[in-house]
């Protein structure tokens, strides 16, 4: 049993390395993690920022950065969806399944690699944040907690994307599917504007239901300060719950998708 666990970890690392090598070879993928979020930050701070009132925050950048960091983390797992649907299409999954390797490694390897690219994206975001006027105004421990939570959020969405990658028929539709599913979720939330100005019905969703808002509010509390309330624990609970659900779905789908 311990040998099995050892192989699961070793195989996961071999496949994580494989995914990371790909990103090095296809630098255009990297723009997805870096340039695009940077562009979002600049657009929001300089174009919309002046017109968005954020009572309780000195600067729109302070309000925006936690939200945009969570959005970036959520989309980081996108490479997993793309990669998995490509592996399926090209027959690489057949090869992997014919090898004496851990069955879980194809999925855990990819999500593990996302953790690496998300860490890189996080550094880029924080640096850009500083440039546009963002500053941490909480204790170092809270900041570290916030960084940890951001990576956990990224890891969570990697599993959501893993499932998407396995159910769609092509890498192209993985792209469309991910965008349609996650993009509105990030906007109808407290990430970019306070939900107070939204219509009542939408406000209820944005402020009280959308897990994305819970995550953003938690990051805001950890990075900028203010009472986090139950948001931090709520965000962690959402993450663990989503990992459990989509991890199970993905593993089941992985077995079936190939066996069909």
């Amino acid at each position: 049993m311990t040998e099995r666990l050892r192989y699961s970890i070793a195989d996961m690392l071999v496949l994580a390395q494989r995914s990371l090598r790909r990103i090095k070879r296809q630098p255009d993928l990297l723009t997805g993690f870096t340039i695009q979020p940077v562009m979002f930050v600049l657009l929001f701070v300089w174009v919309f920022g002046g017109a968005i009132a954020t009572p309780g925050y000195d600067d729109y950048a302070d309000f925006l950065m936690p939200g945009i960091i969570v959005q970036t983390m959520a989309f980081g797992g996108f490479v997993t969806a793309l990669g998995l649907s490509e592996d399926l299409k090209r027959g690489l999954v057949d090869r992997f399944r014919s090898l004496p390797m851990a069955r879980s490694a194809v999925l855990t390897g990819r999500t593990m690699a996302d953790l690496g690219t998300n860490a890189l994206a996080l550094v880029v975001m924080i640096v850009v944040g500083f440039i546009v006027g963002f500053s941490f105004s909480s204790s170092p421990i809270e900041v570290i907690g916030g960084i940890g939570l951001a990576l956990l959020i990224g890891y969570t969405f990697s599993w959501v994307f893993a499932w998407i990658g396995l159910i769609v028929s092509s890498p192209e539709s993985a792209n469309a599917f991910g965008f349609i599913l996650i993009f509105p979720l990030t906007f109808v939330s407290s990430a970019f504007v306070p939900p107070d100005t939204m219509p009542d019905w939408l406000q209820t969703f944005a402020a009280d239901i959308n897990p994305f808002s819970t995550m953003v509010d938690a990051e805001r509390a950890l990075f900028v300060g203010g009472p986090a309330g139950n948001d931090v624990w709520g965000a962690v609970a959402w993450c663990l719950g989503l990992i459990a659900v989509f991890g199970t779905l993905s593993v089941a789908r992985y077995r079936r998708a190939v066996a069909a």
Partner: protein
Amino acid sequence: MQRMQGSDSYAIETEGLRKSYKDVQALCGVDLRVEAGTVFGLLGPNGAGKTTAIRILTTLLPPTAGIARVAGLDVVADADALRAKIGLAGQYAAVDENLTGFENLEMVGRLYHLGRAPSRERAAELLARFDLEEAGGRLVRTYSGGMRRRLDLAAALVAQPPVVFLDEPTTGLDPRSRIGLWETIEDRAARGTTVLLTTQYLDEADRLADGIAVLDHGRIIAEGTSDELKRQVGGERIEVTLEQSSQAEAALSALTALCQEPPVADDGMIRLPVRDRHGAIAEAVRRLDHAGVAVADIAVRRPTLDDVFLTLTGRPPEPEDGEDGDGSEPEVDQREVEEAVR
């Protein structure tokens, strides 16, 4: 090499192997016996069930019914242990485009749990053997179709498995790459590896396989050595095109002594079955010349898969919409074409 469960000498053994999907019977009771150290060809048209058979034997797909053992291990009950003993190269070269050739082989070695250093050694060794030494450091997406297939085959051999499965290893390859791949497969067999390959081409099975089974609609409709099958089909024949169809009678009488079965004339074309084509053309030309018959063209025609099917089933092989991915056209690789042009 294995603790015995089935018979000692069979590397692959199936009994009543069935696979059915909702309304499709992909395999309807297949019995196969492949002796260790031989090359076995599974011959059949698109959608015959060849890929389904390979997927079951490589543990990718559970059978609906029946028993299959590979290297003495049951494909369902001992699937985990079995995967360490097999290598698979598919119809579509399953290599990672965004890794180098070396990295691909190293990764496969590590996933076979050979360890880091031995995996690297083995990768270098295989690249050299497969004539990919120089390309080993390049990304696979720059490879030609033939190079990808060689790399895919090398990946199947990384762990030196006793049994190797090759699903249409040469489909879509140009003739030069095809012959190169044949030589590699022959070399493996000479080293004692058991090879099961599927193919749509009779000449491929003819050249490589010690034993052949012809699969059609999920059933084995003929089995035997290449010679035995050809004897059923009628072997090779010489086709003579005459300058003037009025000379057909003279040509027939000149050639009758050459073969046991009588030659047939058909609109200025004479077909005569030959047992052994060596010297047969020269002899036919000599006889026709002697009889004063003018010959426009003369050629040896080998039996094709179409002939096998016509003879065995009375109909030409028909491609179906198989579930097993056999149904697609062979890919034409632009790079391969460009390379050949250069």
